[in-house]
């Protein structure tokens, strides 16, 4: 069984008036199927309002599905008994770094998760050290989070999740509020966790450049999964992506335009290096 298996997952936001009559129904997830294997790096891509954040909140059981089934780590997410175990196994990092740091000292914030699940004191210290090291923030352990940059705060948030030793982390637009430097910092940390520690990563984003690092990509639009595959396969369909109001990475776009102009460049070029090599082989 896959680590995460969603079948025909539906979520509806129902707005009611004062008398409890249904005023309007917004279908944020519309029969979504999602399969993520243990150790995989999966990106979920979508425009604002495509339902990608709603999907992320289901994986951590912060929202309950209105229909369909969801299994996380072999456990039924609808069973209330599994709630804490699932939350421990799939950590979640949110968009705004300020709003998810609880303590006024970095190391105490990282300890918050382990404290909640009742890890003994001596083990907490080890875990805090290990997870701060894994995101390269160990030298800031006694700092106040208020003095850190956005990228550093977000790495602290990731360390806070890692200290619970989850099998999977879900990152819900972790870089949306960061500058380009912070963005690379955070993604490098995430990629390293995935490659070195084998943590399953689900990255929710609308930045195309970030998706290139993933093993597989899901593209969502209007609550539905409309495309899936490797980044290369997805990005080779530039026109389809554009119809979902998504832009491909600049380099892919350039390759696409060159191809349209009659050059024999292969589909789905993702990095500058690849384009350079492809162009060099032409002549």
């Amino acid at each position, binding site marked *: 069984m896959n680590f995460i298996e969603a079948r025909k997952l539906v979520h509806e936001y129902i707005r009611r008036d004062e008398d409890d009559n249904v005023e309007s129904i917004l279908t944020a997830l519309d029969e979504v199927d999602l399969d993520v294997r243990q150790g995989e790096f999966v990106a979920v891509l979508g425009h604002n309002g495509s339902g990608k954040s709603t999907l992320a909140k289901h994986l951590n059981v912060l929202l309950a599905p209105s229909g369909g089934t969801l299994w996380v780590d072999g456990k039924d997410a609808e069973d209330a008994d599994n709630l804490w175990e699932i939350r421990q196994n799939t950590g979640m990092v949110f968009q*705004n770094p300020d*709003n998810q740091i609880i303590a*006024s000292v970095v190391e105490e914030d990282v*300890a918050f998760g382990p404290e*909640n699940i009742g890890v003994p004191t001596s083990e907490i210290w080890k875990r805090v050290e290990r997870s701060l090291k894994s995101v390269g923030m160990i030298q800031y352990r006694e700092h106040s989070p208020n003095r850190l940059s956005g990228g550093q705060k977000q790495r602290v948030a990731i360390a806070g999740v890692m200290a619970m030793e989850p099998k999977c982390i879900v990152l819900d637009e972790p870089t949306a509020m960061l500058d380009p430097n912070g963005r690379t910092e955070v993604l490098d940390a995430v990629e390293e966790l995935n490659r070195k520690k084998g943590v399953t990563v689900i990255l929710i984003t609308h930045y195309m450049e970030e998706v290139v690092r993933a093993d597989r990509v899901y593209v969502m639009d209007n609550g539905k999964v409309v495309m899936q595959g490797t980044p290369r396969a997805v990005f080779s369909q530039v026109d389809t992506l554009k119809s979902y109001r998504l832009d491909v990475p600049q380099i892919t776009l350039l390759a696409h335009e060159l191809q349209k102009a009659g050059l024999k460049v292969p589909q789905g070029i993702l990095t500058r290096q690849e384009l350079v090599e492809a162009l060099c082989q032409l002549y």
Partner: protein
Amino acid sequence: MLRDITIGQYYPSNSIIHKLDPRTKLMLTLVYILSLFIFQNVAGFAVVTVGLVLIILLSKVPIGYMVKGLKAIVIILVITAVFNLFLTPGETLVVFWKLRITKEGLKNACFMTVRLIYLILGSSVLTLTTTPNQLTDGLEKSLKPLNKIRVPVHEIAMMMSIALRFIPILIEETDKIMKAQLARGADFESGNLVKKAKSMVPLLVPLFISAFRRANDLALAMEARCYHGGAGRTKMKPLKYKSADGVAYLVMAGYFAAVILVRRFF
């Protein structure tokens, strides 16, 4: 201007006072405050002064730094002194026009002013030598017995520490909104009190909305990290009494006895 707020300010150092358990310091502060209202004469005043000076010296916090904290209460001090000076009945010393200064009034005014100054100085030793986290931890542990009468002690302590964490963030946000509104032509400076209060509305409304949004986000993030109240929670830095705390309690008992004895026999 907003950055000058000194609530919960901590002065880092590694003095003996800094290393005491926060529970001990809370208890010490409580006893100290009690003693301020027990002493009634100059001898008692001397004992309290010796106690205070000793603690301040031990804490290694510069005196000037502490006195700065008094600025905020200068008005209260003056009002208290004036009221006590003129409104205490008793043996008349001087009469100006309709105002009478009595001997008792003079004494009361002096003692009340000294009491207030000492109160602020003494309790600021607590906040200057204890990090906000230790303080909330200490409160949580000391008030634990109240759990039996269903006071949600853990939750209150958690709220306190979150509030402390968000003070700088909200201050920064207020600054930002203020600048944004100024850029749109808002005027926070001119006009009388009513007009000034009214001009705060465009500042407070966005601030409240954003505070609620933050609270919502934070609650979600806490739940995602398995927070489910105080039950079954462990601590990264559990509080433990050390031998220094025992000594502190002994000294405190001695001090309190001295204050009471001085009140009875002098």
